[in-house]
C-alpha cells in the first residue's frame, strides 16, 4: 500500500513541482504575489487538450502551451506596470478573464483525452516508469532554473525583486524584467497544467482553482523542511569545513535561490504524500482544502530558524 501511495504522490509531486518552481520565480525571486497562476494552469491544460483533440502531436502543443502561459503572465504585468493596477488585483483580473478564455479554447467544460495519443499514453500501465519519466522532467526544469539564477539575466530578475529602484539607477528598464520573470513563471505553471492533464487523462475548466494555495503550501512546507535541515547541518559540519567552503568560488553561487528550488521539489513531495495519506486514512475529499490550510499554517509557524532560509524568506509572505 505504501508503495502505491508513494507512486501516486511521486507522480503528482513531480508534475506539480513545475508549477511550484513557477511560484518560486514570481513570489520569491521577483517578490511579485502573482495570482494569475490559477488561470494559467488551466490555460495550459486547455491549450494542450484542445490541440490533441485536433490531432496535433503533444510535442508541438507544449511550446504553444508555454507561449500561452507567458502571454498570460505578461498581461498581468501590463495591468500592473502600465495601468497602475495593484499586483494582487492584476493577477485576480487576468485569472478571471482566463476562465472565460479557457472555456472558449476548450469549447466545453471538460475534455477527455482517453484513447488519444498523449506524451505518456504508451506508459499508462507502468507506474514505476512514469515516476522515472516525470522525475526526469521535473529535474530538467530544476536544473534549467538553477542555471537561470546563475546568469546575468537571473541576477537582474532577483535584484529587481529585491530593490527595483537600485536596478533602475543602474540604467535598466525594470518593466522588461517583470515581463520576463512573471512570463516565465506562468509559462512554467501552464506547462505543469499541460503535464497534469496528460497524466490524468482529461482537462477540466475548474482544475486550476486553488492551485496557488496548493503550490504555496508545498513551497512553505519545503522551505520549513530545508530550513530544518540547514540548522541540523550546522551540527554535522564543523566550523572548519564551513570556513573552507565559504572561501571558495562555489560559495558565490546564488545558494538562496537554489535552495528555494529544492524546497519547491521536496515540499511538493511532502505535500502530496501527506495529503494522500490523509485521504487513505479516511479524510473526505471535500475537507482537503481545510487540511491544506492547516498544513500551511503549521508549516509557517513551526519553521525552524535556519540562517540562510530565514533571512531570505522573512517578510516575503
Amino acid at each position: 500500500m505504501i508503495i502505491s501511495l508513494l507512486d501516486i504522490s511521486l507522480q503528482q509531486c513531480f508534475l506539480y513541482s513545475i508549477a511550484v518552481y513557477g511560484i518560486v520565480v514570481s513570489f520569491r525571486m521577483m517578490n511579485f504575489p502573482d495570482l494569475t497562476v490559477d488561470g494559467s494552469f488551466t490555460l495550459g491544460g486547455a491549450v494542450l487538450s484542445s490541440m490533441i483533440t485536433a490531432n496535433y502531436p503533444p510535442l508541438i502543443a507544449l511550446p504553444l502551451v508555454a507561449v500561452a502561459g507567458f502571454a498570460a503572465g505578461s498581461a498581468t504585468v501590463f495591468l500592473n506596470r502600465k495601468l497602475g493596477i495593484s499586483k494582487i488585483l492584476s493577477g485576480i483580473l487576468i485569472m478571471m478573464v482566463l476562465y472565460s478564455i479557457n472555456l472558449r479554447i476548450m469549447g466545453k467544460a471538460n475534455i477527455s483525452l482517453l484513447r488519444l495519443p498523449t506524451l505518456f499514453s504508451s506508459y499508462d500501465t507502468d507506474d514505476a516508469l512514469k515516476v522515472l519519466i516525470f522525475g526526469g522532467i521535473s529535474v530538467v526544469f530544476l536544473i534549467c532554473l538553477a542555471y537561470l539564477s546563475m546568469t546575468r539575466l537571473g541576477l537582474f530578475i532577483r535584484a529587481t525583486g529585491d530593490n527595483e529602484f537600485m536596478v533602475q539607477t543602474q540604467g535598466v528598464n525594470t518593466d522588461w524584467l517583470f515581463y520576463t520573470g512573471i512570463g516565465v513563471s506562468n509559462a512554467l505553471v501552464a506547462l505543469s497544467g499541460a503535464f497534469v492533464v496528460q497524466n490524468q487523462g482529461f482537462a477540466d475548466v475548474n482544475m486550476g482553482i486553488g492551485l496557488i494555495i496548493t503550490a504555496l503550501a508545498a513551497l512553505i512546507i519545503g522551505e520549513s523542511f530545508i530550513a530544518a535541515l540547514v540548522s541540523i547541518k550546522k551540527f554535522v559540519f564543523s566550523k572548519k569545513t564551513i570556513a573552507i567552503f565559504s572561501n571558495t568560488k562555489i560559495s558565490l553561487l546564488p545558494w538562496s535561490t537554489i535552495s528555494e528550488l529544492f524546497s519547491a521539489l521536496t515540499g511538493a513531495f511532502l505535500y502530496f504524500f501527506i495529503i494522500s495519506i490523509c485521504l487513505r486514512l479516511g479524510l473526505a475529499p471535500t475537507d482537503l482544502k481545510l487540511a491544506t490550510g492547516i498544513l500551511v499554517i503549521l508549516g509557517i509557524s513551526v519553521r525552524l530558524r535556519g540562517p540562510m532560509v530565514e533571512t531570505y524568506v522573512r517578510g516575503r509572505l
Partner: protein
Amino acid sequence: MSAPYVIEARNLKVVYNEGTPNEVVALDLDRDNFCFNVLQGQTIILTGGNGSGKSTLVKAIAGMAPVKSGSVFIHGKDVTGWPAYRRAKHIGFVHQDPMLGTCPNLTVHENFQISLEKPWWLPTPYPLTLTKGQLDSIEKIGLPLAEKKTTQLNMLSGGQRQSIALCLALRKGSILLLDEFTSALDEQTKKAVLLYALSEAKAMKATVIMITHDLTLARELGKESGNVVLTMVGGRFQQVMAIKREISDGIFRLY
C-alpha cells in the same frame, strides 16, 4: 548648438502632492528665472537647511521628482521627458538614504556584479570574480569586505551599505550626484571615502554635485578653482535672492 554645459536645469519647479492639501513646492527656481548650469568636470557643493530642497534639486536632475515646469538638459540633450532609468546611463547617484542604493537580500558579490556595464539580459553565468577596479574600490573605501563577499547586504551596517552604494554609483565619464553620501559614516571612514570619491571623480573628469551639511568641508572645497558653493533656502538659491534684493535696492554689485 555647441553645448558646453553637462547639466542645464532651466527654471525647474518641483511640486509634491500637487492638488492635495499636502501640496509642497519643494523647488522653485522658476521664480528667479534661474538656469542651473554645470560645466564638465566642475564640482558644485550644495548646502542649506533641512527641507531647503537640495535633495529635490538633484532628484529632479536624475528624473526622480515630480517636475511641474522647466526643463533638464544633459550633455545638451533635452531629457525632461526621460524616465530615471534612461538618464541613469549618464548619472551615478548616491542617495541620502543608505538603503536605496543596494539590494538588501543579495550578497556583496552580486551587488557588484549588477553594477558592471554589460547588458542585463545576457543568458550566460555572471563571473565569480570581481574586476580589479571593483576590488580596488572596496579596498579604497576602507571596508574589510574582501572576505565578506558572500554576506548579504542587510547584514551590513547602514554606513557600510552607503559606501558600497558609492562604489556601485561611480562610473566612467558620468555625472555624480552625491546626496550626503557620507552622513552615515564615522569620521575616519568619512575622510577616506570622501577623498576616494573626489579623486575618482577627478580621474574620470566627472561632473559632481555634492550635498553636505559640513560647512568647513564646503568652505575648503570651495577654495579650489572651478568649484562652486551654493546655499539653498526654501527651494531657491540664496545667492540669487541676495543679488535680486540688491538690484531692487538700486545698488547692484557682483563681487
